[in-house]
């Protein structure tokens, strides 16, 4: 179980608002996170990954405390090793497709499998600037999976994909999620696209 109970002040155009989340996510579940723009969905994922610290709260993952502001416990992102798919992809401009995956893992068989899932086998020597938006997004997903994380955090991961590619990729990802026993939190604006794979949904109110 992942138990989250956090409070974080957000800067908003009309002043300040507070992101408050108290929720439990079962291990192995796939959760859709939705909510209006500016509600703090991305911030919530980044707090779980350890990139942002909340003013108050705690995060416990499978019995291990990742964060507890009361006891000043903070596990850095490097130790949390939560796979993260960024909304802006955050691909490394200096690395080719293959180098992205090799930077994350030494497991060559796993790299080959990921490249096949993302249909990027023929683009291994391409740098991000020579990939289409959809290819970049798939690479961002593959990179996050390369470390075989236990927890995967995805920030609008399918927004640049055409419907056909999206449905094929989601189908393949579902198999991977099951294989790895992944717990997945996916921020999405399109709730229907994940109806087939998600078994939990969660709404963040501003």
């Amino acid at each position, binding site marked *: 179980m992942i138990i989250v109970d956090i409070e974080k002040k957000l800067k908003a155009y009309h002043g300040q608002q507070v992101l408050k989340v108290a929720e439990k996510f079962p291990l192995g579940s796939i959760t859709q996170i939705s909510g209006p723009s500016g509600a703090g969905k991305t911030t919530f994922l980044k707090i779980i990954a*350890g990139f942002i610290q909340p003013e108050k709260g705690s995060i416990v993952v499978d019995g291990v405390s990742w964060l507890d502001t009361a006891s000043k416990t903070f596990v*850095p992102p*490097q130790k949390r090793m*939560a796979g993260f798919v960024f909304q*802006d992809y955050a691909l490394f*401009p200096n690395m080719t497709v293959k180098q992205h995956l090799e930077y994350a893992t030494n497991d060559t068989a796993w790299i080959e499998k990921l490249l096949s899932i993302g249909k990027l086998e023929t683009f291994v020597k391409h740098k991000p600037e020579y990939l289409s938006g959809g290819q970049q997004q798939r690479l961002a997903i593959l*990179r996050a999976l390369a470390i075989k994380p236990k927890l995967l955090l995805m920030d609008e991961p399918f927004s640049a994909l055409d419907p056909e590619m999206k449905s094929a990729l989601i189908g393949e990802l579902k198999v991977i999620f099951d294989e790895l026993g992944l717990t997945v939190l996916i921020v999405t604006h399109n709730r229907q696209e994940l109806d087939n794979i998600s078994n939990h949904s969660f709404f963040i109110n501003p």
Partner: protein
Amino acid sequence: MELNPIWLTLKLAGITTLLLLIIGLPVAWWLSKGRSFFKIMIEATITMPLVLPPSVLGFYLLIAFSPQHGLGKWLLQTFNIQFVFSFQGLVLASVIYSMPFMLGPIKSALQQLPLSLSQASYSLGKTKWQTFIHVLLPNIKPSLLTAMVLTFAHTLGEFGVVLMIGGNIPNVTRVASIAVYDSVEQMDYATANVYSLILFTITFVMVVAVFIFNKYQLKSPLE
């Protein structure tokens, strides 16, 4: 005409650039993250040589490292190092004087990289150092080159600060810019012209090379 001042100048610029690269990279990285009052003060101090008359900086360095008293005396007695009227003094002054030229472009380039690049690397289990070496540094290459060339070229053109702390000792502290001044003082315009022409050519070629390189490279790697 001696070529020694030219060699001395190139040696000084090379050593200064190398030292500033070693010092500048971690300092620029540190300065690029967050903005505490302490960091602002450090940054302002490092930037001072840009606006301060070189003779003022040279004067204070001369006082600080004078072997007759204070720090200079202690360095001489403890480590047998003398910065005044010596080549190492020129290196020290040049490092301080050219520091903003190395730090500025590197710091700006690091600040322009999206935060998510570092975060993506951390999420893969990479340390801050691994992230710096494998992700951040390769993506600021054009700015790094600009910083190195600016530092080198700026050191070639130093005059006031090196004259104050180094004086005009042939083969030790008599760099090309001082040799030009010295030749003019002696009404030897021909020699002054040769030194000037060599300095002009070296700096012009370097600056043009950077402009050509950056024409193709300087665009942000994220464009």
